[in-house]
């Protein structure tokens, strides 16, 4: 029993303990608890990734109970990537939040609860990435949802409460629909474990209806167009550290479940046409989200609509997966790199937007001229995150687009590549709209006192991570090869 083999259990237990301790520690000590927890979780996530790279995917029996009584955790390459991404963004957001939620600011109503809720959300996200059971997915999704909705409303303003209510109702609709799907799937198969379902699933109307309902519910939770209606308000009106984790991490949680259901649990063509529909909706999301981002006048709304667009890319893997092992490998590696680069860059953009709003005292893009002169590191961070959003070389976003375009061309369905190129051009348009204002050399009256080394430099750190990700692509493809999707597809021996 080495500690590496225990890491799946610890990745859930440690942030959970941290959440409980931060609650009783009081608002002055809570940030220290959160930082310590974040460092331990990052170490554990990296250890898990190393373990998976060495020995391949493994199952962790919670409490020593094996299947069928126990509910196992499953650690594979893809889960490890999402866990590491969550830990990196999580650590940076935690550090940023220590400056954003000043402990001396007694007027801030719910700010003392941020640490506990955020660690609860981290716990649930880690559990979601690791769980191997479709009912456990429901529980994890709801825990993520409850903490996310509460975090959106933490500021207590009318706009945040409205966004939180909308988010909550979307979350409830998704939750109940997902559970109905699980009920139908269980009625047809008598199984809940994903691995058992994968090997035993046979053509059956009830099981197929159940899985279709589950995917529809997860699409709502991932905010794929046209189910994106709740996202811009929720991500745009939450406190900036919360926006960062919602946009870069939380939507990836439900996406990861779709990925596993579509490409691992269900045999190819089990739900005929759904892979195409997801690809088409993904393309629509890229265009619609980008156009909406272009039209926004408030900085966080622009960044939130950019998330609607960037989520679309993640769904291009499904139509491409029909074209054999080579295309699947390229496309899966592409979406995993995209998930990582978007996670890092979007975290950077929301943190940067939060710092700009604090410095300027408002959120109107048009009145942010001259930011580059007074806040150079901050503006450079936002610009660098923009580079990876557009998919310009050298950046993680470029690597992701390159892999996806290669997959599209290799599949013979070149139109997906056209969507990717259009998406890149539109991203360039909306990012330039923001950057053209920030980079204007104009005198500004920034609140100099509101600047802090953390709020100035941490967005840049995440953006640098997104750019340097291009160097880590071989590592990502090794982890993709160690994912259950590629192993069960017979790509990895």
């Amino acid at each position, binding site marked *: 029993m080495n500690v590496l083999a225990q890491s799946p259990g610890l990745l859930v237990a440690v942030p959970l303990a941290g959440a409980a301790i931060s609650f009783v520690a009081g608002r002055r000590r809570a940030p220290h608890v959160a930082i310590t927890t974040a460092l331990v979780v990052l170490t554990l996530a990296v250890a898990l990734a190393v373990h998976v790279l060495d020995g391949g995917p493994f199952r962790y029996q919670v409490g020593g109970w094996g299947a069928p009584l126990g509910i196992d955790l499953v650690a594979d390459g893809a889960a490890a990537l999402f866990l590491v991404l969550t830990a990196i963004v999580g650590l940076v957001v935690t550090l940023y939040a220590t400056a954003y939620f000043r402990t001396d600011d007694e007027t801030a109503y719910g700010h003392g609860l941020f640490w506990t809720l955020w660690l609860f959300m981290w716990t649930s996200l880690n559990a979601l990435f690791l769980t191997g059971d479709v*009912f456990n997915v*429901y*529980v994890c999704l*709801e825990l993520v*949802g*409850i903490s996310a*909705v*509460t975090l959106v*409303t933490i500021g*207590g*303003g*009318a706009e945040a*409460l*409205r966004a*939180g*209510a*909308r988010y*909550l*109702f979307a*979350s*409830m*609709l998704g*939750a*109940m*629909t997902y*559970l*109905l799907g*699980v*009920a*139908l799937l*269980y*009625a047809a198969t*008598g199984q*809940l474990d994903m691995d058992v379902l994968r090997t035993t699933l046979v053509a059956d109307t009830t099981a197929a209806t159940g899985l279709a309902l589950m995917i529809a519910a997860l699409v709502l939770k991932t905010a794929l167009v046209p189910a994106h209606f709740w996202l811009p308000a929720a991500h745009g009106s939450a406190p900036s550290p919360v926006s960062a984790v919602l946009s870069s991490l939380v939507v990836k949680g439900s996406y990861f479940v779709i990925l596993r259901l579509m490409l691992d649990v269900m045999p190819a063509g089990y739900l005929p046409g759904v892979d195409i529909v997801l690809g088409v909706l993904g393309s629509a999301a890229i265009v619609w989200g980008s156009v909406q981002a272009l039209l926004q006048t408030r900085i966080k709304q622009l960044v939130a609509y950019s998330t609607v667009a960037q989520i679309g890319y993640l769904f291009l893997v499904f139509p491409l997966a029909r074209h054999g092992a080579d295309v699947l490998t390229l496309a899966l590696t592409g979406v995993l790199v995209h998930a990582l680069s978007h996670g890092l860059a979007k975290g950077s953009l929301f943190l940067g937007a939060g710092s700009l709003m604090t410095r300027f005292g408002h959120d109107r893009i048009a009145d942010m001229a001259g930011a580059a002169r007074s806040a150079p590191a901050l503006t450079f961070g936002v610009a660098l995150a923009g580079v990876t959003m557009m998919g310009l070389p050298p950046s993680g976003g470029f690597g992701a687009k390159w892999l996806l375009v290669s997959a599209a061309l290799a599949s013979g369905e070149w139109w997906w590549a056209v969507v990717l190129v259009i998406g890149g051009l539109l991203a360039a348009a909306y990012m330039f709209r923001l950057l053209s204002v920030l980079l204007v050399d104009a005198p500004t009256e920034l609140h100099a006192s509101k600047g802090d080394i953390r709020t100035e430099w941490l967005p840049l750190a995440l953006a640098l991570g997104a750019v340097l990700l291009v160097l880590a692509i071989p590592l990502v493809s090794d982890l993709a090869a160690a994912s259950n999707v590629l192993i069960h597809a017979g790509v990895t021996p």
Partner: protein
Amino acid sequence: MSTYLVYTAGGVLLYALGTYGLLARPHLIHKVISANFMGSGVFLILIGLGNRSPESGPDPVPQAMVLTGIVVTVALTALGLAIVKRYYTATGLDNLDDKPSAGGDR
């Protein structure tokens, strides 16, 4: 088998009613209650599943799922009502459409 079908049909009906209420009713309390309807519908289906084959005894797994589901739904409902209350205090509105009042008794 027929009992199981009655449970399933009743559950689907409740789920559909709840979905309609959640999407179509503007009043926020109605929305919270509708979501509970949806939940109850699914729980009814699951409870029926537990007795699908009476000769081999009850299946405990769906009952465990219902128990967990109830806990989650109670938490969601409590959070929903708390947000609705604070939203009403902050804005004086009982809906998200900026209407003066959605009307409580429609």
